């Protein structure tokens, strides 16, 4: 049976082995539009009965040429693209870009702006991990319970963001050198209230999923990846920590003011889907502790941007690879400046891109249901994969 894919690429006829009980391989399209792909991503699985024999991932549907466009906008103009790459953790992406430009131009950031940035970034990590819990619950089979429970918490955090910067997803609030404007007066009290609700939310999700026998049966020993395999694929973030490597940029290469707080890094040991879930769950609790400490230490008054900022930013020629710990892994901006007012080259190192490349070995010889669960556990955001 010759099957023609829409690019005109002809898939070879599945080989029919003349043994009487041999079932015939089937090419299944976990296509661009599929509930399991969390976005526009296509995976052609060659399935023998229920076992996946071969998986060919196709990406590039969301490629918008972010890097090329950033090269033709001045340093402040390209900030908008950072929100749109990883739209589940827009503050973190913005923070990396803004830090890179400040480091290039040698601009010092006032203390208060640093604290507000860190607090908003950690809240964004919570937001992103809640999104993972909801989406992953639906992949595993919770008809909608995990989704609605986690979105109840996400609403609270997004209301806080809306109060601070007027937007729920594409914030565009950080500026080179500081913040766009002052956070509202009751920022700290609101944050504390939101944190209390979030802690309740985390325990709810924990009780719903962690010790549920069926959940354990579906997630344990699925898509397991050893530490070396993960490192070789360039996997970073919760997936790498789930494989037992305690590599967290906030600790290994501390940036901004992370060295003023104490928290722990959760590390799994088998690197399978269940460990990834546990690592992310524990990471949410650790983010809450960081936020508590940051909110207490935050100076309540002070400037939020340096006194003298050049009108047209012309950083001296040079290059920088600024990397920070996004909820999905190490998000890096490799920025080269040539002395003019436009960056010469901006390369966005997206964690999902490399985490996704490690999907194939996890899926081969697994069940079709495991392939979907493994894909869900990578927590991909397709806009960030294709940039």
């Amino acid at each position, binding site marked *: 049976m010759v099957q023609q894919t829409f690019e005109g690429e002809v898939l070879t006829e599945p080989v029919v082995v003349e043994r009487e*009980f*041999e079932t*015939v391989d089937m090419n299944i399209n976990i296509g661009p539009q599929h509930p399991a792909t969390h976005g526009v991503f296509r995976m052609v699985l060659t399935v023998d*009965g229920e076992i996946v024999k071969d998986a060919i991932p196709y990406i590039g549907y969301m490629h918008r040429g972010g890097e090329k466009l950033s090269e033709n906008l001045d340093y402040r103009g390209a900030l908008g693209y950072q929100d749109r790459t990883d739209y589940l953790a827009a503050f973190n992406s913005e923070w990396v870009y803004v830090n890179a430009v400040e480091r290039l131009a040698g601009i010092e950031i006032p203390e208060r702006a640093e604290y507000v940035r860190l607090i908003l970034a950690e809240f964004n990590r919570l937001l992103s991990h809640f999104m993972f819990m909801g989406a992953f619950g639906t992949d595993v089979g919770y008809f909608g319970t995990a989704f609605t429970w986690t979105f109840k918490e996400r609403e609270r955090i997004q209301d806080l963001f809306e109060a601070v910067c007027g937007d729920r997803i594409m914030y565009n609030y950080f500026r080179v050198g500081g913040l766009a404007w002052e956070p509202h007066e009751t920022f700290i009290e609101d944050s504390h209230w939101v944190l209390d609700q979030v802690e309740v939310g985390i325990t709810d999700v924990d009780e719903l999923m962690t010790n549920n026998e069926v959940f354990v049966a579906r997630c344990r020993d699925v898509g397991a990846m050893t530490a070396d395999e993960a490192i070789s694929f360039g996997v970073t973030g919760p997936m790498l920590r789930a494989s037992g490597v305690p590599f967290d940029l906030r600790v290994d290469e501390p940036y901004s003011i992370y060295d003023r707080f104490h928290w722990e890094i959760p590390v799994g040991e088998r690197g399978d889907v269940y460990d990834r879930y546990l690592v992310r769950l524990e990471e949410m609790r650790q983010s809450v502790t960081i936020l508590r400490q940051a909110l207490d230490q935050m100076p309540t008054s002070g400037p939020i941007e340096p006194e003298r900022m050049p009108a047209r930013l012309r950083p001296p020629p040079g290059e920088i690879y600024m990397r920070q710990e996004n909820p999905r892994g190490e998000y890096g901006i490799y920025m080269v400046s040539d002395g003019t007012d436009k960056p010469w080259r901006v390369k966005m190192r997206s964690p999902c891109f490399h985490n996704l490349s490690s999907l194939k070995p996890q899926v081969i010889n697994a069940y079709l249901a495991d392939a979907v669960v493994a894909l869900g556990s990578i927590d991909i955001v397709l806009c960030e994969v294709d940039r």
Partner: protein
Amino acid sequence: MEDGVTATQVVFWILAVVMLISAIGVVTVGNIVYAALFFIASLAGVAGIYLILTVEFIALVQLLIYGSAVVILILFALMLTRARERPQALFGRSRPLGIAAALGLLAALIGGIVATTWTTPESSSAIQPVGLQAIGDAIFTIWIVPFIIVGVLLSIALDGAIMLASPDEDDN
């Protein structure tokens, strides 16, 4: 018994026609899945005949065993393998051999029917419905030996099936 046409006879003839058509259908229809569906229809017809003979237990067991389990296995096998694409060799080389065997079987059947003396019960209402208890006692007292033999046969068949299936499973 009034000699007119009783309800059971009417139902019997309907069922007989249905069974005949589906039996022929099983053999002649090209598409193998249609053959399986016709097979179900014929088995349901057999169950209907049992019902007319007011032997519900056999009828329901027939439905239970054949209707759901055996047919599903056949459909199961058909769906996984590519059997349904290749047209069956209805008119292959072995056609004369097939016809000869069929005719032989037909002759044997007709011979058997003619030879037996059909005793028609005095009246259809005379057949007392056989209670569950009676069937149970019969199985475990009079027919205990064949019951055990069938049990052993089935378990052997089950082991055979597992043996056949397992070699494929050893790779993953």
